[in-house]
Structures are given as structure tokens and as C-alpha cells.
């Protein structure tokens, strides 16, 4: 390796000259390309094997009838025609959007508040570190523990509600509550992570700006709205995009807490796709749904980035 390095250093110094002479095919340059390919190779193999190939195969499978054990059979757009008329699919899309909406709105708001409170009120690294703890717990463990906490009979939440004179709420077993309840678990899980990202962003805002604000007589909420928010826009945009994509990927929380019940009230798209593929062996149809979800996500993310002008803050 040492040899390679010492050879590379003077070569890179010569690159500019080489480019100026537009002598790209010089033997020295060709050697660079080879090294570059070797260095890229591991990542490239990973990308091709675990990303590109499955994606294209998934797209291909969505136009087939495929039950795993027999070769796929080309059926054109039949899966998509069936999809358009599949009530369960549209219901699960709605359920997913409902979940995403709650997670994104509540999650972003709470993580912003948490980050600002951390930033303005405490310098303790222990407290700051504790915020991220839920993020470190596996989703399955979190979901299992929360399903006990929210249990209609034995859950501590309902015991508290009953002690206060209320009636026990079937958080995970009634249609009205199930998605908000799972969404709260999702928010609790991701809150620390997004709060830390925002917190890091807050630290980049110079204290002098707040000093200036204070001199001009701005109150704490005013400074938050007029100073913090505009300066934080790129960070918030990123948090928003992360939250949306993360929320769309919900699966394990649902699988552990409700399995899509009651009466499909929490059947998110991922669960439906999973059930079709691994329960009913209908991999063609499941692929068609996955492709549709992929297209939705692409459109949503693209629109979001454009609308939020994520690459620029309001400083300039």
C-alpha cells in the first residue's frame, strides 16, 4: 500500500497539467482509473447486488404472476388493474398516510420543542444524551413494551386513567385509537434522533443574533419564530424529509402491536404487501404494490424538497 501511495502523490500533482494538455489517455492517467475502479468496487458490488438488481427485478416481477415456487409468468398490467380496484389497498394507503401525517406533524413539532428546550435551558450532557435513548432501542422491543403499557386491561396507562375516574381505552384494539396510538410509539422512538439533529443545527446559530434580538426587545417566543425557525430551515427540511420517509417505512411497530387489526384499521401498506407476499405467496401482486409505493415516495420526496427549498436557509 505504501508503494501505491507514494506513486499516487506526484501523479495527482501532474493531473492538472495533464488535463490542460487534454491528454486524458496518457498511461499515467489510465492507471488512476484502474485504482479508482478497484477502490469503488466493493461499494459498486454492494449497490448492484443489493439495490439495483432487486429494484429492477421488483419492477419486472410487478408485471408477472409469481408464486415463488414456479417461474414468473408475464401478465402485463393485470396486477395494476387489480390494484386500482382493490379496496384493501386503498384503505391501507389511507391508513399509511394517516399514520405518516400524525408522526410527521407531532414528531417534528415535539422534536423541535425538545431541541429548543435542550438548547436554551440545559448544558448537561447527561440530559442531552438521555434524549436519544429511545432511538437506540430496537423497534420490536419498543413495540412489545408499549403494547403492554397501552394494554386495555393490564396497561399502566389505563390503570392511571381508571384511577383518575376515566374509562379504560382500548388503545390498540379499537379503530379510532389504534393508528394514533401506534403513531405516538413511532414519535417516541424517533423523537430523540431528530431532536439531536435539530439541536446540532441550533448550535450553529450564533449567540450574538439572540443578543441582538434581546436588545431589540423580542420575547423568547418571538425570537423562536423570527430568528430560530428561518435560520433552521435547511435542517428542519431535512428532518421533515427523514420523518416522512421513516414514517412511510412503518412495519415492525404494526406487526408487533396489532398485525393490522382490528378490522384492517391499522393495516399499513407495508403490512399488506408483506401479507400478500409471504402469507399468500402472491409475490407479483406484492411487487406491484411495492412499486406503486416507491413511485409515491419518489413524488412526495421530490415535491417536498422543491417546496421547502431545502438547500438554502433564509440567512441571505
Amino acid at each position: 500500500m505504501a508503494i501505491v501511495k507514494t506513486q499516487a502523490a506526484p501523479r495527482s500533482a501532474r493531473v492538472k497539467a495533464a488535463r490542460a494538455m487534454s491528454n486524458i489517455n496518457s498511461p499515467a492517467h489510465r492507471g488512476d482509473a484502474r485504482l479508482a475502479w478497484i477502490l469503488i468496487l466493493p461499494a459498486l458490488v454492494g449497490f448492484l447486488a443489493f439495490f439495483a438488481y432487486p429494484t429492477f427485478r421488483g419492477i419486472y416481477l410487478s408485471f408477472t404472476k409469481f408464486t415463488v415456487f414456479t417461474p414468473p409468468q408475464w401478465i402485463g398490467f393485470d396486477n395494476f388493474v387489480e390494484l386500482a380496484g382493490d379496496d384493501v389497498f386503498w384503505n391501507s394507503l389511507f391508513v399509511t398516510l394517516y399514520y405518516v401525517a400524525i408522526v410527521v406533524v407531532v414528531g417534528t413539532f415535539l422534536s423541535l420543542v425538545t431541541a429548543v428546550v435542550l438548547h436554551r435551558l440545559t448544558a448537561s450532557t447527561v440530559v442531552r444524551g438521555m434524549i436519544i435513548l429511545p432511538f437506540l432501542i430496537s423497534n420490536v422491543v419498543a413495540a412489545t413494551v408499549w403494547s403492554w403499557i397501552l394494554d386495555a386491561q393490564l396497561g399502566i396507562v389505563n390503570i392511571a386513567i381508571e384511577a383518575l375516574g376515566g374509562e379504560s381505552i382500548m388503545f390498540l384494539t379499537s379503530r379510532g385509537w389504534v393508528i394514533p396510538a401506534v403513531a405516538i410509539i413511532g414519535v417516541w422512538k424517533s423523537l430523540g434522533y431528530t431532536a439531536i439533529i435539530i439541536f446540532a443545527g441550533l448550535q450553529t446559530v450564533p449567540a450574538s443574533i439572540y443578543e441582538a434580538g434581546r436588545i431589540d426587545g423580542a420575547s423568547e417566543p418571538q425570537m423562536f419564530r423570527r430568528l430560530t425557525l428561518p435560520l433552521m430551515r435547511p435542517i428542519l427540511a431535512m428532518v421533515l424529509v427523514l420523518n416522512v420517509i421513516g414514517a412511510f417505512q412503518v412495519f415492525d411497530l404494526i406487526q408487533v402491536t396489532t398485525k393490522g387489526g382490528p378490522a384492517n384499521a391499522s393495516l399499513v401498506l407495508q403490512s399488506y404487501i408483506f401479507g400478500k407476499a409471504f402469507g399468500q405467496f402472491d409475490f407479483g401482486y406484492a411487487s406491484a404494490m411495492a412499486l406503486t409505493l416507491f413511485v409515491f415516495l419518489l413524488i412526495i420526496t421530490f415535491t417536498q424538497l422543491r417546496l421547502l427549498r431545502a438547500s438554502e436557509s433564509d440567512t441571505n
Partner: protein
Amino acid sequence: MKLQRIVAGAAFVGLVATMTACSGGGGGDSASGTVNWWTWDEKQAASYEKCLPGFEEANPDIKVTISQYAVDDYFTKLTAGFVSGSAPDAFQNSVPLLGAYAGQGQIMPLDDLIAKTGFDTSVFSVGLDSWKYTDGKQYGLPLDWAAAAFYFNDDAVTAAGYTADDIKNMTFDPETGGTFGEIVAHLTVDANGVRGDEPGFDKSNVKTYGVGSLASGDFNGQTSWNGLVSSTGWRLGDKASWPTKFNYDDPAFAKTLDYVRGLADQGFAPQFGQFTVGGAEQLGSGSVAMVEGGSWDVTTMAKVPGLKLGVAFMPTGSDGRSVISNSNANNIFVGTKNVDATWKWVTYMGSEACQSAAGVDGTFLPSIAASMQVAADAQAEQGVDLSPFTDALANDELYAAPPTVNGQEVVDTITPLFEAYFSHERDNDVFAEMAQKTEEIFAK
């Protein structure tokens, strides 16, 4: 150039490693080696361990590994195993999945093996026909059979002025509920000690429900509503096997299910989704006086501390007593590398020796009559009464769950509709839709 050598070296090592890994799994001649067997029931896994010494003594070259995976993951794991070729050599399977596995060519027809080794399938007194696929071939050897029963708290029954015989001889009709309805109402007690059939009963503050929830999303209602509706002469499928429709659109079905849902509305049974713990916990904690459960629950129920348990079979209706029953069976994976050894293990599990050895635990009801008797006697000594089940079998009061095609799709489609019905999102108009959906799915 040095780099090249490193890369080449690494590649070579990788190649050799892969080759040795491959050759490691490939070996294995006839009737020796390792047989992997899976079940989803942890209690049965422990019981069947008792068959191992006898089997390995007779077949010293074969090693059997029993693995158990929780039922929630079991079939997913199995599917993944089929796809990757790493499925167990043989495994316990449930009737609704016969259609999928046999139809997709993932399990072996056993007729040739049966003929070749002269295995006598007549040892099974129940369950054999449920494991014939539409091609008429035998794909499974029965392991067990199961039925449902009402488990009741004998003290609560006595306190209500009934005897155990009253519970064992309940009658049912969907109009009035029969003596079943009377008993359930009377066994229900609210927080002030007022019984369900007495004036001043507070249905929103019930201490002990007369019966555990009979509302279930289960497509055949095996341990919930099935016994009640089957007592009216209703049957799940329009044919005994490979039906083209499930008879959810029968008016008698809607009437009975309305009655079942009404029990919760009257406060005689918990609301759908209200209780999250199992029947044994509900009965043991005194939340219910009676609960329906599977025959596989009987040993658990009998061991609930402080509970004097009674077991009763289904109530008698206009068409007598009847409930759906199912038989799990052993299937053999087509990808098994060791057919002979696997067949030896599967047939040993289907022998009186193994069924009796494992059956004495009462964790399942053996499919072989002689072993069933051994199991019943052993359990009777421990104070567990299996006679409601054995009597039902003897009196022909069980009907086999029909094997179907696309079983999993039926489950996924029907379960949410039942849940919608029991949580009052839908009314009994849902049943016609359910019947129609089953017709569509079976026709696929």
C-alpha cells in the same frame, strides 16, 4: 501488483470457503444423517422429545433435531425455508395450508413411500382424509386432532345454583339462547353482586362475565362461535372438502352470530378486544365464569391455581351437538436431502409407541385410538378430564375442517370482516359479502 496478489488471494480463500461450505451440507446417504423437524407448539415440542430415545435406539444412524417456532413466525419461516431450500425435512402443518403447499409442489405426496414401506395408514382413527389434496394423493400423516370445549369455574357454577351436569347438558337455539343463554346470564355478576338476569344489573360494571368472548375473527370460529352455529346443522363449507364457498350467507348463521354479538352488548360477555389475556387467565382471575377453548388448552386450564375446573362439550341444538375439528399432520418437504431417514422419523411419529409416549402429557389428542386411550387414562390420573373430547369423537359429534385452496387469502380476507362485524362497524349484511369473497377466492 502487490494489490493484485492480495485481491487474488482473498478471492481464492473466499472460493475455497464457499466450496467447503457447500460440500458440508451435501453429504448423506440413505437412512442416516440428521432429520430436522419443526412444530409451532412449545408444549408439543417437549412431548415429542420423548419419542427421540425410542427412535434413535431403533435407528442409531439417524439424529433428529426438533425445533419450535412461535406460531406467528412459523409459517413465514417455513415459506422462507421453501424458497431458500433450507426448510425442515418434515414439519407439523395445519389443514388451511395444505392447499398452498401441495398446490405449489413444496410438500411430497406420500403414497409411493406408503406403498414401498407398507406403512399401515389405518392406524389413524381420525384426520387422514383431511390431508388428501385435490389430486387424491395423501400429503400428510395425522399427528393429532383437536376440538373445542367450555371450561368452567365449578365454584362459580355451584354458587349460581347449577351443577356441573347442567353445564354439560346445555341446550342452544339462536332465538332464546336455550339453557345456554339462561346459564350465561345467571353466571354473570356485576360489581354490586347483582346477577345478569336480575333487575338492577349494571352491564357497564361487570365483575364476572358469564362466558368469555365468543366473538372471534377466526374464519372457522373453532373455539368461539362454531359450536353454537353448528348445533343448528350449519356447516362451514358447501362441501366436506375442497368447498367452493363458505356458508356465511346462511340465514341461520347470521341469526346465531347476532345472538353471539348480543351477549357482549347485554354485558354477559366481554366486548370484542376488551380482554387481551388468554382464556386460562380470564378464568383463573375470576373475570369470567366459563370460557370456550381448544382441547390443546386442557392441561393449562387444569393447572390454574385455585381453580376447580369443569369441562363441558358444546350445547345441544336443533341438530344435536357438533363442532368443527382439525387435525394437524406431518408433511415432508420436497427439498429434503434425506427422504428415507425423514420417512423413518415421520412414520415413527405416526406409530402407537411415539403417540402414546408423547400423548400422556395431554398436550395434544393423539390420532391413534390406542394412544388416545393411553393419554386419556394418564390425564385422568392427574385429574384432567378428557372424556368430553373422547366422547364427542366416539359419538361422531365432530366434523373435519374442510381443506381449501388459497387458505391464507381466505384468512386474511375474512378476519377483518369478522372483526368489523363484532366491533359494530358492520352489521349482518357483511355475511353475504364474506360468502361471496370466499367463492371468488376458491375459484382463483
